């Protein structure tokens, strides 16, 4: 599976003509994807890494339900796709997301930088390898922010007598 790397494959005739794709770290802590053509270079995409990137978690809040569940699972450690689904079932959630929904959400969150792909390792239950995911610091911050938001809602529900008061 492609990491947050170059998402495309080069057309064979182009490669033979001398074109190449590369990632380059610019001076201003930005990563650029470059298509190198003989006599020329063309920039395809540019995004920032490091501090700049992290500040952008607000645009992902509030998280979708599936996304929050994914972050919840990954906060505890690295999981693979089906493992996350099993966690959701174990939590007693009534509407379990479909596999397609789950993996689209995973792709979206990798794109947003909230999670990243870890190594491919064997699963305890089977002999086959699976793709594992790991939460990033941005993802952790986003998960905490959303959990706080949910907590505040629960508190308000208790005050409004929708939920019983906490038993200390």
């Amino acid at each position, binding site marked *: 599976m492609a990491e947050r790397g170059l998402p495309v494959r*080069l057309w064979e005739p*182009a490669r033979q003509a001398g074109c190449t794709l590369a990632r380059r770290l610019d001076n201003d802590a930005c990563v650029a994807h470059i298509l190198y053509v003989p*006599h020329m270079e063309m920039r395809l995409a540019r995004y920032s890494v490091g501090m700049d990137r992290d500040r952008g978690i607000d645009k992902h809040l509030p998280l979708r339900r599936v996304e929050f569940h994914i972050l919840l699972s990954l906060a505890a450690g690295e999981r693979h796709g089906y493992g996350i689904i099993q966690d959701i079932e174990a939590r007693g959630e009534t509407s379990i997301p*479909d*596999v*397609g929904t789950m993996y689209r959400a995973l792709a*979206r969150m990798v794109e947003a930088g909230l999670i990243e792909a870890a190594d491919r390792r064997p699963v305890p239950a*089977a002999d086959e390898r*699976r793709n594992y995911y790991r939460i990033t610091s941005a993802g952790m911050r986003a998960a905490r922010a959303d959990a706080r938001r949910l907590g505040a809602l629960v508190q308000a529900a208790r005050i409004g007598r929708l939920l019983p008061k906490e038993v200390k």
Partner: protein
Amino acid sequence: MMRNRMLHLSERWFRLLERLYPPDFRDEMGSAVVEAYMDRARHALQNGGKIHLAALWLRALADALRNGAAERACPAASWRRAGDWGREIEIVRRRLVRSPLFALTTIGTLTIGLGLFAVVYTAVQKVLLDPMPYKDPGDLYYVWRDYSPIVDLKRGTLAGTDIAELQKGNAVIEDAAGLRPMLGGIFSLREGAEPMEIAVTQTSPNLFHLLGVPLALGRSFAPDEVGLGRGRGHVIVLTHHLWNRLGADPGILGTELRLQGRPHTVVGVLPPEFTFVRNDAAAPPQRVDAYIPLEVHLAEDPNDGYAALIRARRGASPEAVAAAVDAVGRAIDARDFNGRGLKLYPVGLKADVISRIRPALVVLGAAGLVLVFMLMVNLASVLLSRAAQREHEVAVSRALGANTIAIARSTLLEGGLLGLAGGALGTLGAIWGTKTLVALAPLDLPRRDAISIDWRIGATVIAIGSLLGVLAAAAPAVWAARASLSSLLAGGAVRGGGGQSRWRRAMVVAQVALSVVLLSSGALVMRSFERLLRADPGFRPDGLFTVRMRTPPEFFPKMSEAVAFQDRVRHALAAIPGVTGASGASTLPLTAASFPFQATITIPGAPGTAGDAERDKVLADLIGVRPNYVEVMGMRLLAGRTFTESRQAGVMEAMIDTAIARQFFPGGNAVGAKIPLGERSLTIIGVVGQARLYDVHTDGRPQILIRSEDFGIRPLFFVIRTTREPHSLLPEVRAAVRGVDPRVPVGDARAMDDIVDASLSPQAIGGALISAFAAGALLLAAMGLFGVVSGSVTRRRHELAVRLALGADHPRVLRLVLREGALLVMLGLLIGAPGIYIAKALIRGLLVGVSPYDPPTLLAAVLGLLLVTMAACYVPARRALGIDPAQLLRQG
């Protein structure tokens, strides 16, 4: 074993479902999705067995369908390269937004073009193609009698007894109905209320049953309600629009209305979709406002004047109907006409109604198709130059792995989106356009009420727009997809080069060919229209005002009372300030709205009588007029005198027209001769030029003007000559008539100029449309040529710089550049020439007095085309002269 097989099957199923996702997502996540599903499958098999597994399969299908589509429309990660429709549409939209001028001009052109097309399509569809609102309209026919063995009248009315024969029915004819106009339709809601005029038709009681139309309110006529004044009260059935005019009161059934002063009980109201036009033998179809039963039973009326409508049995072929009608006709011919050979023949209902308008509509339809083709070519050439500009960008995405289909698809999408937008906006514009068309169209246009845009037509136009856009983008898409790597490696786009210019030239040639055809057609139609405008109708229409007033026998039982009333009205009208004269006639020129009386006359003893019984008989129109008519109308008096206020006792005066004078009195001296008419004879007192009744540009049937009171003709129309603006007279005219007798309504007030314009309106509309199309085609061809020539100049600038440096003078260089454009124009002319011949066949119906191969007009059209196109080539060619050879060669 079983378990493994189930798992194996599951894996195959999941892999199949994987294909529903777009390729990028498949590459990245596809195997992970399958693996996750396999884990679930194992779990399901363990816990629930085959049932749970089957349920999982179904869930997987639903999941793949939903998420596959969602991923294609709205991909999770933005860097996806292909297979995502939503992203592609988004990209195309952004591209269009970034070049607003291109997008706006293209959408604007498409809007105007598709809007015009929508209007044309609506008119053709509603009038020509849509079925009429009756049951099985294909089985309905009008039956006419062919009087040609006796007189020159091919479409004549039938007698009541003839229709009774048809009603007897046989294997082919199921039923027949007879209609005749009611003379006079003065109508008021109650005694003393403001009277209005409506068009009333008398009909046999089975008409609505024959047409298969159920009434909205009440009932149709009963068979025993035929015959007014036979002890039963008079009854009347209203049309829906008349009912609306009267207030749309459901309780109107059973109430009484006054028609011609007599009370009629309303027994029924027709449904709103029912529009029936009563066909006349010689005149255009008439609107009907209300129906009353016939005065006499059909079988007891041997008089002519009925229009016959028959319904054939289901499935009867037109030939069988014609044969059956012919058989009945022959029997009648033998019995009533001594076997003179008078035939009956049927004409299909719709064909009969639209026969007059058909040629214009066919032309309109063809012009619409040509317009769509023109738009397509124009859009294609525009998209092609855009594709050329994007050549570099396309090469990059090719290098990054986009396949041919994806690249072609984005160009097709662009064309489709533009076409869709143009179609949608065009439909909106056409809603206004059809309203304008209906307002401009002549009042007697058949099915005029039905012409409006409904959602079906709107959807069709939008679909056609999108299809047009996609088709137009086909050539550019193919060209773009074949963009090769060389343009990428060369590091800069070679603008306007190579294969793309071949396409552009082909399109310019097509546009020039189209322009030739449209221009020549337009020039011919305009020439014919100009002829019509200049034609002398036989009288002076400017400054004439006309109103329609009946003097019904119910109000004026004796002829002398009617005459006295009319004289009083005439004097009252002449007394209005600004009026120089007033008179009356039974038929107005150029309307034939109430068709004139006709009579066959012979003038025995006239010098021109050849002794041949056939040639010496003439079918002439009889027009009853009041004194001073010729002077008020401004007709030409060629010999003798006109009717004056005073008259000789015992002498019935008549004025003949030049046709009769020429035939019977070739040496002159018509005045004083006598024409026998029935038991009486007319004395010719003068010869006048015809005030044309039918066509502006040519004389119709010969005319005889008689004093209306001599024959009991009650004139319908009053004509008033004034120095003021004609329409301003209306209030005073109404007041004058009210002052004489308040019971008589003044209707149908029109200026004669408007009547002349209305008779010319088919040509006017056709000419305007074709000219608009021609101008548009020419403009597009000129733009195309401009583009080709300037592209050529840009491409050849090095070569031209070398030539200039080597001493070529300016005219030579100009000729060199112009040669390319001139070649395209000549090619277009050659290809378009056969098209001219095809178009002539189509517009023949619109041309009046102009031959379709009129050389001067065609020459003028071609010259005009050459002028515009060469100017379009010349402007960019001049740029070639501005090339600085030294600088260009230094650049290399």
